[in-house]
């Protein structure tokens, strides 16, 4: 499955539903699709649109979904400059708790089984294993 999502935060919900409702049944449990996949994909798409494409309506974010026998991989790639995921502060630190930003990647890492970035840092791969 491949999507080109226009750089519009208002479309994130629809794009997530499109992916979640078109997954072949059986690989992931309904609960993991309902919560883990939806939340992680919304995060990744939101980040790509906000930071990657700068919400520029002329740009798009590419989503590619690969479904294996016991694994689902979702790639979200924007055409931005990329970033260094190792340089993000801990959002659970008491000094950061009352910030209203900075939790996205933290949440993703806790909801999926594996997170990988491409070298440039403008593409993320979310892996969810069967269950």
């Amino acid at each position, binding site marked *: 499955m491949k999507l080109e999502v226009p750089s519009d935060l208002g479309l*994130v*919900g629809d794009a997530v539903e499109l992916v979640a409702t078109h997954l072949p049944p059986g690989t992931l449990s309904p609960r993991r699709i309902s919560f883990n996949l939806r*939340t992680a994909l919304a995060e990744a798409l939101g980040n790509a649109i906000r930071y990657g494409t700068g919400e520029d309506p002329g740009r798009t974010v590419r989503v590619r979904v690969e479904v294996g026998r016991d694994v689902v991989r979702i790639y979200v790639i924007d055409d931005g400059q990329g970033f260094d995921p190792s340089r993000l502060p801990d959002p659970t630190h008491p000094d950061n708790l009352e910030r209203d930003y900075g939790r*996205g990647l933290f*949440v993703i890492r806790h909801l999926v089984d594996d997170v990988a970035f491409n070298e440039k840092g403008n593409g993320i791969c979310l892996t969810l294993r069967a269950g």
Partner: protein
Amino acid sequence: MRFTLKKDKSGVVIVGVEGQLIVGNRQELKQKVLDALEEGSRKFVIDFSKTGYIDSSGLGVLVSLSKKIREQGGELRLAGLNADLQTLFELTKLDTLFAITRTAEEALAAF
């Protein structure tokens, strides 16, 4: 996805989040609550009993609203989180920042 807003007889504003609270609709929730705050409401319950998922932008808007409501001498409670959403608040340690009850009725009773 939609937000419902009502006031109970003691003036507590109850906001229902149906569907999801994510980057694409968080500003709508924020505006509804800020409008009610502007009109003088000071006690708020956000009811997540019909909410499927919340992303970090949704969490962020809740943090922001909590601060604004407190600054105005008010109070915000969250209610109705399912097990997955409760886990989300716990892993982000936001369960330490918010008063969370099992149901909206319990939240109302706690004011």
